[in-house]
């Protein structure tokens, strides 16, 4: 038996392993990054509410030893909003896939960002619906083949970073599974951040996306991430044509703005003061 690494104390590995994820999937690496981030920040397990919807990535809460909620498709952020409002001192983390957060849950995504409620959204983007067997997602690149776009995708893709920035999220970052240390770093920053924080992590799906588009080799898919990732600082000097098909990584916004649960507490104080008058 191999030696147990330090992340095992955060896993329900005795009860729930093996995971549902395919060999070569990026979600396991991201789960490791999340655990290492939380471990570094030394947040007690009881203080974390870990919420997810439905999908491959949203299976994560079942394996993690926190207060976990595996909810309905696309609605994880609404459940998280309820938890955060009732228990403002808890760290509320939401893990969501691209279909979960941007298609069925798009409305909740922009409104959680608009309220700037202190929830950390970790958006795992593999560009496809993995659990249902490889259908087109709102993040599937143009021309990519999926089971519901068998002749090449014609739907333009969402840029979740731009969406989050426009909706008013106060921390927005993007990373890749290949750059796992950077990912861990961003997750840590996002958890520490007060306000709505979103980290998009570009992941690979060899079984569905890879198999239907050129290669099912996870190593090649990871190298693709390496080749196509452009740091934000470099991207600023590049032209639009050069950036086509590239993944811009980095922290896009990190500001302190009024957070919703704090604002609500002040609102209650104001109302009660007026009542006494």
């Amino acid at each position, binding site marked *: 038996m191999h030696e147990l690494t330090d992340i095992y104390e955060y896993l329900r590995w005795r009860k729930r392993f093996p995971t549902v994820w395919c060999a070569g999937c990026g979600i396991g690496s991201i789960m490791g990054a999340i655990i290492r981030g939380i471990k570094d920040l030394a947040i007690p397990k009881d203080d974390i509410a870990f919420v997810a919807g439905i999908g491959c990535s949203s299976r994560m809460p079942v394996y993690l030893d926190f207060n976990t909620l*595996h909810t309905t498709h696309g609605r994880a952020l609404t459940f998280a909003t309820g938890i955060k409002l009732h228990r403002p001192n*808890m760290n509320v983390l939401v893990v969501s896939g691209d279909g979960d957060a941007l298609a069925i849950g798009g409305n909740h995504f922009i409104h959680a960002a608009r309220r700037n409620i202190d929830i950390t959204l970790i958006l795992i983007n593999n560009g496809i619906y993995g659990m249902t067997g490889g259908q087109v997602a709102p993040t599937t690149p143009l021309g990519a083949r999926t089971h519901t776009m068998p002749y090449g995708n014609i739907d333009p893709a969402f840029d979740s970073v731009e969406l989050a920035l426009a909706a008013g999220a106060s921390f927005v970052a993007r990373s890749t599974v290949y750059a796992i240390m950077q990912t861990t770093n961003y997750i840590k920053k996002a958890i520490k951040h007060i306000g709505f924080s979103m980290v998009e992590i570009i992941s690979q799906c060899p079984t569905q996306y890879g198999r239907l588009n050129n290669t099912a080799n996870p190593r090649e898919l990871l190298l693709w991430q390496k080749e196509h990732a452009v740091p934000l600082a470099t991207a600023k000097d590049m032209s639009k044509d050069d950036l086509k098909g590239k993944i811009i990584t980095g922290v896009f916004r990190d500001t302190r703005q009024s957070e919703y649960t704090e604002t*609500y507490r002040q609102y209650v104080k104001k109302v009660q003061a007026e009542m006494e008058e």
Partner: protein
Amino acid sequence: MPLHRTTPEGYPVLFAQGNEACVYGAIHAGCNFFAGYPITPSTEITEGMAREMPRFNGIFIQMEDEIASIGAVIGASAAGAVAMSATSGPGFSLMQENIGYAYMVQLPLVIVNVQRAGPSTGLPTKLSQGDTMQARWGTHGDYTAIVVAAATVQETYNVTIRAFQLAERFSTPVVVLLDELIGHMREKLVLKEIKRLTPVQRTFPKIPPEWYFPYKEPLDMVAHPAPVGEGFRYSMTGLIHDKSGFPTAIPSEVNHRMEILKNKIMMHCQDIWNWKEHYTEDAKYLIVAYGSAARAARGAVETLRNRRIRVGLIDLKTIWPFPYRPLPQIAEKAKTKRVFVAENNMGQLIHPVREALPQNIKVHGIRRYDGYSLDPYEIVQLVKEKIYA
């Protein structure tokens, strides 16, 4: 609260809408979380909660839609809040998937549905009882629902408080089924529970976390999953789960879970059933109704009694679980020949009534679905028509 008169015992007396009564009921029951989305004819509840919640240290949030509202309510309930949402037909339809989640993970919450005519947008400002079946069978899969109803403003207040108590007692969503007429009508309201009632408290486990199983049922079959953040870390999932909350597909465990969802309500039917009887002791003819239809039926019964026709009324306060056992007992005792089911829809409540009664009792529907309340005179005519046919 505005200036008001009091009863000799000191209870405040108001002239209030059903929707306002619902707000007072929720607050006196200890509700401390409300998430909603405006929809006619339930908007006054959302507005009332927006006004009252901050005054009582509660939380009010207007979410982006009804799906989000019920999501936030379930999240807050999972975190230990006494939570509620209010909506009407279209919003209730949107909520259904998440309501199913709440049944599955067994969380207490209250949903008020002030019914309006449907399907689709229907008649937003007109009355209907078209969600009678949706409240029972709305979400997919098998489960057992608790649905309560009210026919007056005072009852709305009482029934809302009862809904919170039932939700906590059985750790399940409870639907308060009102209709546009009751919601918007003004009547006398006595706030009887303002001092006496102890607000509903969430149940916390009494055993150490390492021995804790969230879904290990005690003898009464009602498990109370511990609120998030109390040191009991477990998995809460909408997948069929075992006693520790982890997903399972083992047939015996699946059977067990499904049976619990049904039996935790059915074995306590006696405590949940509630109805009011009028002249049922010798009722040769019986009317079964709830909500605004029961008001009209009450008037009809009085008129028919004046004409020496032995008619009685059963005014249901708990619609689901349906009183399958008491109803035939009442009918047998009174030697009832015919039963009339008065409702503001095309015939929904008539099905469980027919199912409950023996074959020799004829069941007729009295229906109206044009957006207006049943007329007592209309009921009188229909009953006489059938009797003398």
